Each structure stands twice: as structure tokens, then as C-alpha cells.
């Protein structure tokens, strides 16, 4: 059974806040220099809703991972466990947080989606519920959201591991919701 204790309720609160930062709009593809899409940048007139976004960049296995983590000013949002789970797969849309954070691998955009899900640790801890980040590449293997850019770094590295010597295609930038 899932271990849902106060710690996990807090995890939910934190995750709900970071969900804001991690759902990505298709506009990301427009901003990518390596994608074939053309058109205006939908984020051109967007004002940050909260604290300054944190940008990050590093090279991992020969690939450049860069991105921007934006909490959207929702770090004080207090979502209890029941409220968050009841949002279901519509959490991204409900929180209205899409499009504020970004991940690129070798300048190719990766669209992100937040899902509420169970996690099954392999280190002996009991299963728990949290918010996971998935993309076209790690569609069945969510990375748990955190209140800092490390979750996006982890996701970028996971994607690089899965790509190996290959690159993302333009399809990886297509947004979808759960």
C-alpha cells in the first residue's frame, strides 16, 4: 500500500507548486533553433508570474542539456493530498501552469507533462504518491518533481541516457496533456 503520511502531504504541496514550472507548451518548439517549425514566439509577451526563473546548463555524455526552471510564483500554494489527487490527469491544465519551464537537449526542445502518480522506490522505501514529469521519451518513467531545477536536470540526463548517440526529433517538442 502507498505510504501517505504528513511527509507525503508536504511532498504534494511542493510538487503542486513545481508543477507550475514544468509543464511545457508547444511554443517551446518554436523557440528551438533546431526545429523546423516557424512562427511567432507565444512567450514573447509573457511576464514571469513569480520568482526569477533559474536557468541551468551542463554537458552530460557529450550532449548539452539546458533549460529554465520557473516555479511560477506558486511555491506558497498549499495543496493537500485530497485536493491534488482529485485533479487527476488534468492537473496541468487546472493549475494553469503550462509553458513556464524548458528543457533542451543539444538545442532540441523536449515537451514536458506533469502527472500525479505512484512511485515505487527500488531502495526499500514504501511506494508513495507524487507528481511526475514525463516527456515523449520517458513516457512510462516519470521523474519526480522537486522545488528546484534538479528535477529538470535529472530528466535531461535520463533522456540523454535513452537517446545514446541519437538526438531528439521535432516530434519530441509536441505538447500533450494527461
Amino acid at each position, binding site marked *: 500500500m502507498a505510504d501517505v503520511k504528513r511527509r507525503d502531504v508536504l511532498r504534494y504541496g511542493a510538487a503542486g507548486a513545481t508543477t507550475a514550472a514544468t509543464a511545457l507548451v508547444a511554443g517551446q518548439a518554436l523557440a528551438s533553433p533546431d526545429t523546423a517549425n516557424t512562427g511567432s514566439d507565444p512567450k514573447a509577451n509573457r511576464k514571469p508570474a513569480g520568482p526569477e526563473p533559474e536557468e541551468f546548463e551542463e554537458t552530460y555524455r557529450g550532449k548539452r542539456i539546458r533549460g529554465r526552471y520557473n516555479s511560477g510564483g506558486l511555491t506558497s500554494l498549499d495543496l493537500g493530498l485530497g485536493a491534488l*489527487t482529485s485533479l487527476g490527469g488534468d492537473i496541468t491544465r487546472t493549475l494553469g501552469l503550462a509553458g513556464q519551464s524548458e528543457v533542451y537537449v543539444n538545442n532540441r526542445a523536449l515537451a514536458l507533462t506533469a502527472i500525479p502518480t505512484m512511485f515505487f522506490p527500488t531502495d526499500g522505501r514504501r511506494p508513495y504518491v507524487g507528481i511526475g514529469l514525463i516527456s515523449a*521519451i520517458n*513516457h512510462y518513467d516519470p521523474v519526480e518533481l522537486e522545488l528546484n531545477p534538479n528535477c529538470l536536470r535529472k530528466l535531461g540526463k535520463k533522456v540523454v541516457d535513452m537517446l545514446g548517440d541519437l538526438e531528439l*526529433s521535432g516530434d519530441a517538442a509536441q505538447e500533450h496533456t494527461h
Partner: protein
Amino acid sequence: MADRKSIAAMTSAEKTAFANALRTFKTTAAPSGRRYNWYIDQHITYFARTNDQISHAHQAPSFFPWHREYLRLLELDLQGVSGNPNLFIPYWDWTQTASPFTADFCGTITNGSVNSGNFSPNWGWSIYRSSIQTNFLQRRLGQGASRPTTAAVNNVQAFTVYDQSPWNGTVSNSYRNRNEIELHNRVHNYVGGHMGTREAPNDPVFWLHHCNIDRLWWLWQQNRGIDTYQPRTGTTTRVVDNTETMQPFGRTPSSVRDIAALGYTYV
């Protein structure tokens, strides 16, 4: 009636027939009018929450029935393009040793790519809507996860409640959710490459894996009752109730609950 066998029980001729039917279907429309890539399109479309605000295929109660109908249609289409009414989708019991990744079946892997033989481009297998920039089918066996053990399967099969609110990926006491995450997702991640992506049906082993998932649901139904789908009728928004239609099929979970009525069985 299709008798769905384990890959461990298949003859060489049956493996060849299955692979060749998929290759033919890749370039030839079935009598239904569908083509193979239609299946990839549907998986991508219905993996996401659609405009009706319903999750049809994943992270929702209809995960099992949606894929049951999805596989049934493919089986019928493969029978149609091959002219073989006995052709069946085999199941891959990943707790056992028999592997589908062989030269005479789903193809072998070199440095993560299927670049020669069955399901390579030269053989006649093209990749569609790939989020990985490549023309070759990709696999990363064991990199992202290990295969579920028999004990893990038994643990999941022991859950008695089909599903319950909030009907998503957070439900602990739910046979559907535990199977979807602990078994289904894990094997997608075990194979890796295209199987780890939303366009997973690019890999033919997708069908063998989901056939085993369907078999496990059928075994569970035989223990817990065939008509045990939850939620029942008219009570729940944003998920498919027992008598609501699943898109794009236009069929209800109730209508696919009995595999005998659908024209196949597991042997």
C-alpha cells in the same frame, strides 16, 4: 477464433507469419481500410487527455479495455492482410526466459538499433512519428528497468479491487493502476528505445507485451469476475464508465469484458 499462444510455444512458421503480416500491413491497407500507422496515431492521440476531457488509454480505468479492443482490431487486420484467419497475436511472458528479440522474430539489436534483418529498414520496417531522430527501431534492453519477477506479478494479481477514485495513477488499492505502473510501465522501460516513448507501437514487441497484459487481466477476471469493471454507469466524470464508449473505437468497457465473445482465447 484466434488461439493466442506464448512466444515460447510458437513454431518458426508462426513467428515468420506474424512478422511478415506486420510488414505487409505496414504498407498495405487491411480490408477494414486501416493501415499500421493508424495504430501509432491512435496510441499517441489517446495517450493524452483528449478534447472530451477523458483519459481513454492510460492512467485511467479504461486502460485494460481500451488496449483489449486495440489489440483485437490489429489481430483482425493482420488476419485480413495475410489472408490467414488463424493468425494470432502472441504473448510475451516476460517472467520467463523466452525472448522475442531474435533474428527470426522481432529482430536483433546492435548498439541499440535494429539495423539488419527483421524489422530493420532494409527488411521493410519504417519508423513513424518518432521522437528520436532515427530511421531504425531503437531498443535499450535492461537499461531503464529490469523485467518484473513472478513474485511481482503475483503481488499485483492479488489486488481485489479493479479500480477506484480518483481513477488515475495515484490509486494504491487498484488492480488496474498497480498493473499499469508496476508491470506494464516497467516492461516498456525494460525494452527502452521506442518502447519507452509515446509512439511505442513502432516496436512490434509492443503487441506481444500488451497481449500479456491482456492475458493477465483475463486471468484476474477469471478469479474476480468477468463483469468487474469500475466505475459502473453514470457516476464518474472524466473517465470512461462501464457503459460509456471508448474513443476511437465506439465500444464500451462492458462490451469487451469477455474475450470469448471477442473471438479469441489464451492457450
